[in-house]
């Protein structure tokens, strides 16, 4: 099989699908031309992620990565959510095929973008370094 049982479970029964109308932070990464876009909505209270929802246009592993990543940050303090790596998402999914690893990268970056959006909207200072585009492979699509 192409995907692990965990990936298939999160793809077939994705957790946290949807939107949050009065979201405190929204982050989006990807490009429809490349075949995947992820959008993350956060509800934040006292620096804790109270609720998180996602919308994804993409393949099975993109949807599963979004689902898993949102599960991993739900109820967590922002400081902890910011340390979530694509590697941790991929490991929690019991691995992704090599050419699908970028999906976990998108999930990590979508979450970071949403947190950054929350900081920007509320005038909260942060270290730019934390939000620098990661050095790992992102460019699976050059369009």
């Amino acid at each position, binding site marked *: 099989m192409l995907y692990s049982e965990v990936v298939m479970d999160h793809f077939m029964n994705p957790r946290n699908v949807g939107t949050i109308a009065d979201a405190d932070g929204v982050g989006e990464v990807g490009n429809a031309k490349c075949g995947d876009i992820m959008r993350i909505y956060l509800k934040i209270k006292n620096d804790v992620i109270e609720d998180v929802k996602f919308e994804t246009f*993409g*393949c099975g592993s993109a949807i599963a990565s979004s689902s898993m990543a949102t599960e991993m940050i739900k109820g967590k303090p922002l400081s902890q959510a910011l340390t979530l790596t694509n590697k941790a998402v991929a490991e929690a999914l019991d691995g992704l095929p090599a050419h699908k690893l970028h999906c976990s990268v998108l999930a990590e970056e979508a979450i970071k973008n949403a947190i950054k959006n929350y900081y920007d909207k509320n005038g909260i200072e942060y270290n730019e370094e934390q939000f620098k585009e990661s050095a790992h492979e992102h460019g699976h699509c050059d369009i």
Partner: protein
Amino acid sequence: MKIYADNAATTKMSKTAIQAMLPYMEEIFGNPSSLYSIGQTAAEAVFKARESIAECLGCMPAEIYFTSGGSESDNQAIRSAAEFGAKKNKKHIISTAFEHHAVLHTLKKLQKEGFEVTLLDVNENGIVNPEQVEQAIRPDTCLVTVMYANNEIGTIQPIAKIGEICRAKKVTFHTDAVQAVGHIPVNVKNDNVDMLSISAHKFHGPKGVGVLYVRKGIYLSNLIEGGSQERGKRGGTENVPGIVAAAAALKEAVSDLPESSQKLVPLRDKLIDGLLAIPHSVLNGDKEQRLPGNVNICFEGIEGESLLLLLDAKGISASSGSACTSGSLDPSHVLLAIGRPHEIAHGSLRLSLSDENTEEEIDYIIQEVKNVVNYLRNMSPVWRDLQEGKKNYVIQ
């Protein structure tokens, strides 16, 4: 319900083909090059298979060469014409932008070896205009290779007309007819073809057997050196059971053709109409000039791989031109060639029917595709933006 709707990828072997090959694995397993009787009986079977295939294609048995499949046939045909052209300092080849990779990648390699390749546009309906071929032919053109029917969008090309042009201009003409033979009437003489590739597993024969038709007098060189099999043009002990089964499958497919297309075309059209009732969907390829079993549709706002996985969960086997399904970076070169933008090409679905599919199955496919497309659109940020008017629909 289990529905196989990916017959352009491969087909289930017919009972006739399986029955035909069994004796050549169990009793008559001899090498056709051997002198004793089970060898010679096997040789006789290959001889008869060659005759039968020649009859189905409208040529002489001596013009038929057995290979390992469609890809090998394409490689050998193109390489041979290129080699012959190079001897006369003719190093220009004409093909189309939406050929199978067995053709495109062979041409790419030849480009690196100093050949010049012109890839013709296939227009929005996925059909090459013969005039385009005529205009592209130069004094140094050694080969025109245009597929008979496209493997993704099923469009049928004006092969006889292109062949006529090539014959008049004295340019060798090859066609990859892997998707056509056994599905629509093909006759190499009427179609003015010099070389033609076919593959047995596309018409309910076994995998690993291909045929290359080479018109008498057309130069053919080896890809595989070895013994004197195939008149010295393709070394290696013949795949006797496969060859016998390929001949049986082709004979059956060709004789069933009028009946099977009569059944398939209405099923195909019902499926097309049912799926196009989904808003913001579009048919890829001409509606009339297409293979009897081919349906290929793009749905805006969704991605093809997740569509396929969800359809598989509903028991439907299908295919897509999305990048994710191929493991490559780009969506289908065929959909890009007919002008679909990348984001639309990612959302394509190909259903290729055989005459085993039923009307009940078509109803089920239409219903399930509708459900799955709706489900995926509801979680798609692209679809949300389109619905909220933040972006404009590409497919109206």
